[in-house]
């Protein structure tokens, strides 16, 4: 059974009298442990697809099965629970709470699933350590560089042991050198912790870190291919 299965997913936005088909019958499967990059121009539907995969948005048509469960029949709160337990989000704009320390930002997902205060703290410290931010626990986001902020966001995505990380243009706001460091972190998480990483990007250099590239155009999948090993190294 595939970890993620999309069956003829469509998403239609009504703009006045015009129907805008952001997704038009997308079908694909992603297995556990994959590292997938979704590419395409802006407006190709890749971000909409990502939101559907993240249970942040519901498709107009079709079915999205996560771990064999059809998400279309779930309530708002059940979707929130799935996001909490199975999905970790990394955004282009980091989306950290600005007036809150790095540690508390990482603790945040555990506030919503009943871990004790000491357990939250221990796990958050460990998650920060695993992304190389040991000793920065009390720093606030505005005291951290872009790369460090994105590491905090990744620690936050990891802290609940979510099997899937969804990263929407995670390097979009970072310089090349930091981008490479962040991507290497994703590669390590995928290789060592067998976390399924799904990444949206429009940069071929970034997509090259993945093992599989799905290309979107006007709401359709136009190509879906494995990345050759030697390309990954460069």
């Amino acid at each position, binding site marked *: 059974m595939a970890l993620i299965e999309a069956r003829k997913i469509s998403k239609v936005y009504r703009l006045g009298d015009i129907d805008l088909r952001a997704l038009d019958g997308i079908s694909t499967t992603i297995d556990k442990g994959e590292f997938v990059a979704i590419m395409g121009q802006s407006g190709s539907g890749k971000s909409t697809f990502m939101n559907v995969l993240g249970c942040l948005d519901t498709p107009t048509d079709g079915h999205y099965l996560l771990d064999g469960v059809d998400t279309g029949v779930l309530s708002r709160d059940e979707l929130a629970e799935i996001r909490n337990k199975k999905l970790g989000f990394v955004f282009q704009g980091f*989306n950290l*709470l600005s007036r809150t320390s790095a540690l508390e930002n990482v603790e945040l997902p555990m*506030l*919503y699933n009943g871990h004790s205060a000491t357990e939250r703290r221990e796990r958050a410290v460990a998650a920060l350590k695993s992304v190389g931010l040991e000793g920065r626990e009390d720093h606030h986001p505005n005291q951290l560089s872009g790369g460090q902020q994105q590491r905090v966001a990744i620690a*936050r995505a990891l802290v609940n042991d979510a099997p899937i990380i969804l990263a929407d243009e995670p390097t979009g706001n970072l310089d090349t050198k930091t981008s490479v460091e962040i991507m290497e972190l994703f590669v390590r998480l995928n290789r060592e912790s067998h976390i399924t990483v799904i990444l949206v990007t429009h940069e071929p250099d970034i997509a090259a870190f993945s093992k599989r590239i799905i290309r979107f155009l006007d709401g359709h999948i136009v190509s879906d291919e494995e990345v050759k090993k030697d390309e990954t190294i460069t």
Partner: protein
Amino acid sequence: MINIPSTFKISFRALRVNKMRSALTMLGIIIGVGAVIAMVAVGTGASRKIAEQISSMGSNLLIILPGATTAGGVRMGAGTQPTLTMNDTEAIIKECPAVADAAPIHNGVAQVMFGHLNWSTGVIGTTPSLLVVREWDLAAGRSFTIQDVKSATKVCLLGQTVVDNLFGDQNPVGQSIRIKNVPFTVIGVLGKKGQNAQGQDQDDTIMIPVTTAQKKLFGTQFPGMVRIIVVKAKDAESLSAAERQINELLKQRHHIGQKQDNDFTVRNLTQVMQAAEQSTKVMTLLLGAIASVSLLVGGIGIMNIMLVSVTERTREIGIRMAIGAKTWDIRLQFIIEALTLSLIGGVIGIITGVSTAMVLSSISGWPTVVSPLSIVLAFGFSGFIGIFFGFYPAYKASLLNPIDALRYE
């Protein structure tokens, strides 16, 4: 699962971040709660004072004064000429079925001496019935009797203030004092009554048999004349019946025709006082209601600031939803924030209200009573306001679409 302690922590932090704004929002509640408590304290104090005066005056009381009330702007009666007599008093007791008892009063002011000390006080000449009518107990000794009245003996009952001024710590019963240089034997001490509705000290008085007052102290313009008659009706219901019966009886006894004005006036003091008590109660309600409006405005202030806060923090709400906050996690976060604002405001408001009441009574001398009930109510009500006015913003926040919230700039 909702994590209440953490939610409280989140709320406190959010309030600390906007210190000025939180303080100003709280100020609305502080003023509201403070005003309610202070105003109700002033009102309760006033009505309690009146209630005390009513009970000290004696219940179901009628007072008959000589002289007429005005009719049509022209005084037709006998003015303030004395018209009431001892016989009127006895007739009222005998012939008015609604009357429980009646006592004549023939009074004046006199210098009282004991040893080298002297004191000027009001001397009331009356019958033993006055103690019944005024519901006045004796603190020591005994009362004078009908026999004392008949034979005009020189005995007296002293009010507490007179005792304090002439005897200090000595026991006055059995001692001899001089009233207007006439020697009297003290046979009893009256119980403490306190101030009356006009603020006079009711304990600054001496009671003697009415006949003694008429014959030996103050004299009369005609035999048997008294200044006032006080009457006690059988109960509250028979007050107006007693008033009517007395009117008819005295009209007949004083030979007053249908078209003529009365040469006496019957006053229902209990009614007057009860009306006063009623009006202070209405006043308390009114003051409380006006103050409640400011509490309501304070609540709207909370709602306003919470709505602003929800809008400002749309992105934060989006992030929280994306990482797993459920509907009630978001709602509770904002409700607890509003509740925290209103409860802290409530506590400070209670302190403000109680101290305002204390300052008011020490500056203006108004009696104020802060009842525990009004504190509990004010605190509970501010909590209710927090939840009530916090709910809509919280509800609005929980309905946000996570994607739209995340994209909000």
